[in-house]
C-alpha cells in the first residue's frame, strides 16, 4: 500500500469537547477515586503552560509557591480544564490566559491576563484564593464563578459572574470590597493596567456588608479607574501576602497602551515575561530572548527569573544555536529556581550542551550532578550518552 493511498485522513467524525469531557469522566470513574500528587511527583513536572495542571496541583501541596510564580496557563485554540489538588477546578475559554502569581498551601493568587476563566473553588481552611484581573481582586471562599478580562478602547473591562456562593471584588484596597452573590454579574472598566493593586486586606467575607451590584456586564461600569493604586515594592521570590507580584515595577511602568503594548520605558517583570512568551509564540525567538534577557537583567529577584532563564537557555540552544549562551542561562535557571519543576530539564540540557561543545570534563561533572539528583529521571538515557563515554 503506497503511503499516499492512506485514507485515514478522509475517515472520521469530530468528537466535541463535551463528548470528550464526558468520556474522561467515565474513564476517571472506572479508574476509581482520584489521587493527587504525592511529593515525589515534583520531579516530573516540566516547564510551563499545559503543565499548569501539574503546576497548580503541586503548588497547592507545597509549603511555599515561589518556584511556580509566573507560570502561565494558556488555552490557545481550545478550552482548557485544570483540576487542582484540592478538588477545585479552573476552566479556561479559548484564547485565555492565567498567570500564577502565588501558589502555596496558604495562598493561591492567580491573574486572568486575558480572556475568561471559570473557577469552581473548594474551600480550604486557612488558605486564601484570589483571582486578579485588570487590577480587580476577587477573593474566593468556596464557590463557582467566572472572571473575564477584555481589552476595550482606552482600558479593560473586568466582569465577574457568580454561579454559586459569594465572592468579593476589590477595586481599591482602601475601600470596602463589593460582594457578589450567586446569580449576579458585576463589571468594571479600568484603564489598562498590567500590575494589580498591591495591598491584600484579606477581609473576612462574611463580615462585609452587601454592596449594590451592577447587573449585566455590559451596563455602565460600577467603579472608576483606580489611578491612585500604590506602586508595588520589589518582590522577593518567596512572595508573602501583601507583596505585589510585579517586582520592581513603577507606576509609570505599569501603564500600557490601550492595544496591550507597553508604553512605559521600564516595563514590569510580568510585562517582559508576557512579551517574551508572545514573541516566541509569534515565531520571533530572538525577540523572545531579548525580553527574557531584559527580565533577568532588570528583575533578577523576580519569581519569574528562573523560568525566564530556562526559556532563554532553550531558545539559545534549540533555535539560535548559541551553546555558550544556553549554558550561562541554564546555570542561572538552576541557581535561581533550585526547587523548580524545570530543574531536571535544565540539568539535562546542561549535560547535552557541554557534550555538544566537546568539553568532556564539564560534561561529566554536569552528568554526575544530574544522575545524583535524578537517578530515575526521564532524561537518564540521554544524559548517559551525552558525554560520549559509557557511564
Amino acid at each position, binding site marked *: *500500500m503506497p503511503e499516499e493511498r492512506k*485514507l*485515514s485522513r*478522509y*475517515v472520521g467524525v469530530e468528537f466535541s469537547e463535551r463528548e470528550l469531557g464526558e*468520556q*474522561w469522566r467515565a474513564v476517571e470513574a472506572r479508574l476509581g477515586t*482520584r489521587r493527587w500528587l504525592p511529593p515525589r511527583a515534583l520531579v516530573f513536572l516540566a516547564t510551563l503552560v*499545559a503543565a499548569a495542571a501539574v503546576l497548580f496541583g503541586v503548588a497547592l501541596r507545597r509549603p511555599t509557591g515561589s518556584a511556580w510564580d509566573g507560570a502561565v496557563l494558556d488555552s490557545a485554540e481550545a478550552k482548557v480544564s485544570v483540576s487542582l489538588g484540592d478538588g477545585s477546578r479552573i476552566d479556561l475559554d479559548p484564547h485565555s490566559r492565567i498567570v500564577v502569581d502565588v501558589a502555596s498551601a496558604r495562598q493561591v493568587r492567580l491573574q486572568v491576563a486575558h480572556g475568561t476563566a471559570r473557577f469552581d473553588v473548594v474551600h480550604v481552611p486557612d488558605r486564601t484564593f484570589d483571582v486578579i484581573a485588570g487590577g480587580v481582586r476577587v477573593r474566593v471562599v468556596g464557590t463557582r464563578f467566572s472572571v473575564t478580562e477584555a481589552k476595550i478602547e482606552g482600558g479593560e473591562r473586568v466582569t465577574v459572574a457568580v454561579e454559586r456562593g459569594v465572592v468579593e471584588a476589590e477595586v481599591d484596597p482602601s475601600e470596602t470590597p463589593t460582594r457578589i452573590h450567586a446569580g449576579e454579574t458585576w463589571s468594571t472598566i479600568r484603564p489598562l493596567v498590567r500590575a494589580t493593586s498591591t495591598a491584600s486586606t484579606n477581609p473576612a467575607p462574611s463580615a462585609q456588608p452587601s454592596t449594590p451590584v451592577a447587573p449585566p456586564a455590559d451596563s455602565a461600569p460600577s467603579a472608576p479607574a483606580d489611578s491612585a493604586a500604590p506602586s508595588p515594592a520589589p518582590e522577593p521570590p518567596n512572595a508573602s501576602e501583601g507583596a505585589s507580584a510585579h517586582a520592581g515595577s513603577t507606576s509609570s511602568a505599569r501603564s500600557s497602551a490601550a492595544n496591550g503594548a507597553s508604553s512605559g520605558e521600564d516595563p514590569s517583570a510580568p510585562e517582559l515575561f508576557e512579551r517574551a512568551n508572545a514573541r516566541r509564540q509569534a515565531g520571533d525567538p530572538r525577540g523572545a530572548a531579548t525580553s527574557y534577557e531584559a527580565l533577568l537583567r532588570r528583575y533578577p529577584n523576580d519569581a519569574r527569573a528562573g523560568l525566564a532563564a530556562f526559556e532563554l537557555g532553550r531558545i539559545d540552544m534549540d533555535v539560535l544555536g548559541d551553546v555558550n549562551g544556553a549554558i550561562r542561562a541554564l546555570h542561572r535557571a538552576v541557581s535561581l529556581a533550585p526547587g523548580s519543576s524545570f530543574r531536571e530539564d535544565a540539568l539535562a540540557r546542561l549535560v547535552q550542551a557541554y557534550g555538544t561543545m566537546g568539553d568532556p570534563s564539564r560534561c561529566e561533572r554536569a552528568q554526575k550532578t544530574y544522575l545524583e539528583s535524578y537517578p530515575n529521571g526521564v532524561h537518564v538515557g540521554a544524559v548517559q550518552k551525552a558525554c560520549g563515554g559509557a557511564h
Partner: protein
Amino acid sequence: MAHPARTTQSGAGPSDAALVVSAMAGEGWAQEALYRRYARLVNGLAFRLMPNRADASDLAQDVFVQAFQSLPRLKNRDALSSWLSAIVVRTAHKRIRRQRLMRRLGLLRTEPVDLDTVVSRTAPPDAAAEARAVYAVIETLPAEDRMALVLRRIEGMAIAEIAEQLDRSVATVKRRLASAEARLFERLGEYDA
C-alpha cells in the same frame, strides 16, 4: 477540553514519559493530561475501526481504562502513541468478534454503516470511493479480515505492522487481506481490471 497538548504554548509541556511516570503513581492530573493529549488520536482510530459514534466512544473509554491500568507494562514511555494505538486495535478486534457472535445469536442487530457520515466530503473522488467501498463491505467480513482490511486500506499500515498489531503471522495477514480485498474489489468493480 484542550486539544491534546503535545507541546505547550511555551513549547515545553511535560513529556509523555514524565506524565506516564506520574500517572503510574496514581496521580489524577497526569492521567487527565495524558487523556487530553491522546483523546482525539484514540477516538479517531476507534471510529475508523468501528465506524459508529457510540461504539467508538465505548471502545476509546475501554482503551484508556486498560492503558492506565497497564501503564507499568509500558516499556518505552516515549512511544505512548503507538502503544495506545496497539491497544485500540486489540480491543477493537475483540469487540468486533464479540459483536459478530452476538449477531449470529440474534442478540444484536446489524446496523449499516452511515457512509455519508464516515467518509469526509472533502475526500478526493477516488479516495472517497475506496473508503466508501471499504466501509460498505466490512460488516460482511470476518473480524480478522475486517481488521486487516481497515488497517491496510484506511490506516495505510504495512503488512508486517498489521501482523504485529493483530498478533498473527505475516502469512496469515496476507491471506486475510486477500480474502477481504477480493470482497472489496467486487465492490469497486475492479475484479476484471
